[in-house]
């Protein structure tokens, strides 16, 4: 008979003896671990998501009459211990003073948040904080609210023009050029025709570009100095202090979407992470394609085909232990064998013309995926084996008794039953691969990949190209960007994105495993 543990036996009648302080410390260690995890996630969420909220602009006047417009970022105690200083993001890099300014708080004479302060996002020199004085558009000079409305109107037009031009380049000009590159041997008339068409398209593109010009903003910075800003370089404009909460929310959503859908700007300190998301997904997909068949094959061999002797047990232990080998070692292997070894040979055989600059002999998408496939192989093998061992022997015996061959038993009975386990393994592998950075640094990740590995150029998927990766983007933006403080919000947001992706993958795996255990019970141990 099973005695129901030590849950509620006689707790009413008997006073249980006291457990002493150690038991409480043990309980606290669980709580502390969970607390650390929670704190980490909360920190990332708050810092990562707050970044996109349009923060209030302050106009601060110092005791010496100096005026500063900026967003307060953080506060520090001064070294002597008396008073605090505050870091303001003052933007306006073109003023020559950098985008940060430390102000000691006792020196602040006044601190206001006027409604007319504007934030401009520009293509050059980053963000601008200040006031909009006037807009000069088609010979007219508008001031006041009219200027703001005219500017908003014009910004929308500019956006449309920019998109039209991009579309023209992407859909018409580049395909034409590519066709001309691909079919150079057609007749001269054809060539001239193409040439003329290209000229027409380029003229159209230039026209679209010309239409963007004109339009100047007259701006005033915190010092009251006027400056002129060509409107075409302005990407977005808003007045954070005058926005209602729902407008802010809308703005927040827009910024978040930009972050997810655009490429990085300003040396990875602004813009979005789309190429990194894309690179991560592509690499992980390729890795899954590589790791699944081999992992399943190895697991099936170990569990179904091989003689279950001492050797198999040793091999199984070996495979399991590979999961514990540091990932950097796999990176070293990938660099030495895949990149320098195999890649070098491929270059010698196929790309002799471009040597010594390497094609496959340098890190790239293919080698990164292969390295990570190797790294996650044990995960898939172990999970698949666990799934296989859960399948009761009588299922196999039944199939064999009905006259199925071993192969048929395998493909029709065993593998379908083990499918969820394999999927779990694969998801765990993907989660591990998505968060792994160290080996990628050796085999093909890049801080900036101007050319994505997939594009309209034959053969469309460029396995030799370098790619961007979310995890590496965190490392790069936090250490290599031109200004860590400026990159920090973006790093938080990227870290949050990565953590969310990985947590979702892991939770899926956990739920699947839970469901499996319920359905199939404990594994049959060998």
């Amino acid at each position, binding site marked *: 008979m099973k005695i129901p543990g030590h849950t509620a036996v006689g707790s009413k009648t008997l006073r249980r003896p006291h457990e002493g302080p150690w038991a409480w410390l043990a309980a*606290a260690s669980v709580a502390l*671990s969970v607390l650390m995890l*929670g704190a980490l996630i909360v920190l990332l969420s708050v810092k990562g998501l707050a970044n996109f909220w349009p923060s209030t602009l302050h106009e601060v006047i110092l005791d010496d009459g100096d005026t500063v417009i900026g967003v307060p970022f953080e506060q520090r105690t001064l070294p002597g211990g008396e008073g605090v200083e505050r870091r303001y993001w003052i933007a306006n890099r073109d003023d020559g003073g950098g985008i940060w300014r430390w102000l000691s708080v006792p020196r602040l004479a006044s601190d206001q948040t006027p409604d007319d302060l504007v934030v401009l996002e520009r293509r050059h020199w980053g963000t601008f904080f200040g006031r909009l004085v006037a807009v000069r558009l088609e010979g007219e000079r508008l001031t006041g609210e009219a200027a703001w409305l005219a500017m908003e109107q014009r910004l929308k037009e500019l956006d449309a023009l920019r998109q039209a031009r991009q579309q023209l380049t992407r859909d018409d000009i580049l395909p034409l050029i590519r066709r001309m590159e691909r079919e150079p041997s057609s007749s001269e008339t054809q060539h001239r025709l193409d040439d003329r068409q290209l000229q027409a398209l380029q003229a159209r593109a230039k026209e679209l570009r010309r239409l963007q010009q004109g339009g100047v903003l007259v701006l005033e910075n915190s010092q009251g100095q006027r400056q002129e800003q060509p409107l075409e370089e302005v990407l977005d404009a808003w007045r954070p202090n005058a926005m209602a909460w729902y407008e802010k929310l809308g703005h927040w959503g827009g910024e978040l979407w930009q972050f997810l859908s655009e490429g990085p700007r300003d040396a990875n300190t602004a813009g979005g992470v789309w190429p990194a998301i894309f690179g991560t997904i592509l690499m992980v997909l390729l890795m899954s394609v590589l790791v699944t068949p*081999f992992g399943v094959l*190895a697991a*099936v061999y170990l569990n179904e085909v091989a003689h279950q002797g001492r050797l198999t047990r040793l091999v199984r232990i070996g495979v399991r232990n590979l999961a514990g080998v*540091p990932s950097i070692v796999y990176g070293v292997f990938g660099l030495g064998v895949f990149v320098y070894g195999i890649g070098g040979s491929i270059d010698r055989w196929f790309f002799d013309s471009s040597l010594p600059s390497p094609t496959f002999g340098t890190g790239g998408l293919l080698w990164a995926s292969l390295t990570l496939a190797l790294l996650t192989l044990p995960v898939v093998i172990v999970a698949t084996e666990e799934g296989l061992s859960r399948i009761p022997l009588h299922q196999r015996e039944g199939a064999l008794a009905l006259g199925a061959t071993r192969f048929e038993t395998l493909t029709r009975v065993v593998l379908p039953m083990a499918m969820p386990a394999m999927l779990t393994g694969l998801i765990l592998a993907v989660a591990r691969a998505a968060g792994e*950075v160290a080996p990628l640094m050796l085999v093909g990740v890049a801080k900036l990949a101007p050319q994505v590995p997939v594009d309209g150029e034959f053969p469309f998927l460029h396995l030799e190209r370098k790619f961007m990766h979310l995890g590496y983007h965190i490392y790069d933006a936090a250490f290599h960007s031109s200004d860590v403080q400026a990159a920090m919000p973006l790093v938080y947001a990227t870290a949050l994105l990565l953590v969310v992706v990985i947590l979702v993958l892991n939770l899926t795996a956990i739920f699947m495993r839970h469901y499996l255990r319920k359905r199939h019970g404990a594994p049959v141990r060998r």
Partner: protein
Amino acid sequence: MSDPTSTNPLYRSRQRRDRLATLLITAGGIGVLLTVIAIAVFLLVEVVPLFWPGADGMSLSALWSAPGTSGEAEFRWLPHRLEEGVVAQASLAPLLWGTLEAAIWALIVAIPLALGAAAHSSLYMTPGLRARMKPTLELMEAMPSVVLGFIAGLVLGPWVERHLAEAVSVVLLLPLAMITLALGHRRLPVPVQRYLSLNSAALWLLPCLLLLVLAAVQLAPLWESWWFAGDLREWVEQRWGLDVQARNAMIVGLAMGFAVIPGIYALAEDALSDVPRNLAEGAQAMGATRWQTLTRVMLPIALPGIFSAIMIGAGRAVGETMIVLMASGNSALMTATPLDGLRSLASSIAIELPEAAPGGTHYRLLLLAALALFLFTFLMNTLAELVRARLRQRFRRSRGDT
């Protein structure tokens, strides 16, 4: 008598297909396993030329230390000097030391927390809570190390450097508060006691701990000004000559401890749960508390399993790259102070290998480092696995006996 189906052509083709498939699976499986062996072989083959007596042959002693400018033996890792052909000063000793130091600090953080958590969840937790808590702790393991490194190196490290007193206060106050709680709990009225029971402590302690941490941080300036003249950092430096660096071994240890906890926890919890229930129940029937059951009965039995859990954790800590790279100062020092920076084998490989010329001495030295990591973790894990396998066998036998 022969099987009537064996003459059937369809059956024969099926048989052939079966044999072919088996062959393929075998080939594939063995191929995969060979690839795995190839890693070790590759590293060995690339490293061996380092020790050949020849142009770039290095003696074992040069890997340890080399005479510096003053003529005394120095432990310096100066790989860029190798390519310039100047005196080779490429001692792996500081890197080995840094690797060990980081791992040790990680384990100091992780072992008590992980083992405590394992003990609590295998002994006290209600099954329902446990079924939720285990996956939650598993999520900790899934945290990408680059994120942990970022938080440790760029957020936590500088914060601790600025707020040393607050950090110390949290570390000291938490255990003290827990002991006070343990003593005070029995004085609580019984209904409250039952409501705030040890079984669900992991849940209701969460907000308490949060409050405690906040209180500790708030109180820190007070006692800092009472006892340390308002600046603990200054005091530590003048009293003990210790200089607190923002990127130090303790921060690395904390971040890496976070990464290692779930691994140790899961295995240790398994080891404790594998202990036959009847032993624990017997002890409790004799009037032992659960904690006494743990220390006197379960722990001795599960000790090898717990030991293997720690070994696997050590393996992970030794090879962790991004956390050390981002949170440590990467200065190849050989000091024992936990407040100095350090540099590990793995992070050296990550930064330097892409720039090292393949086939050169620097390249081979880094591969030697990789080989060392590989062998160390592989040995650790194999040992741990063997211990666990043996333990499991023993349990099965003991279960069979009863």
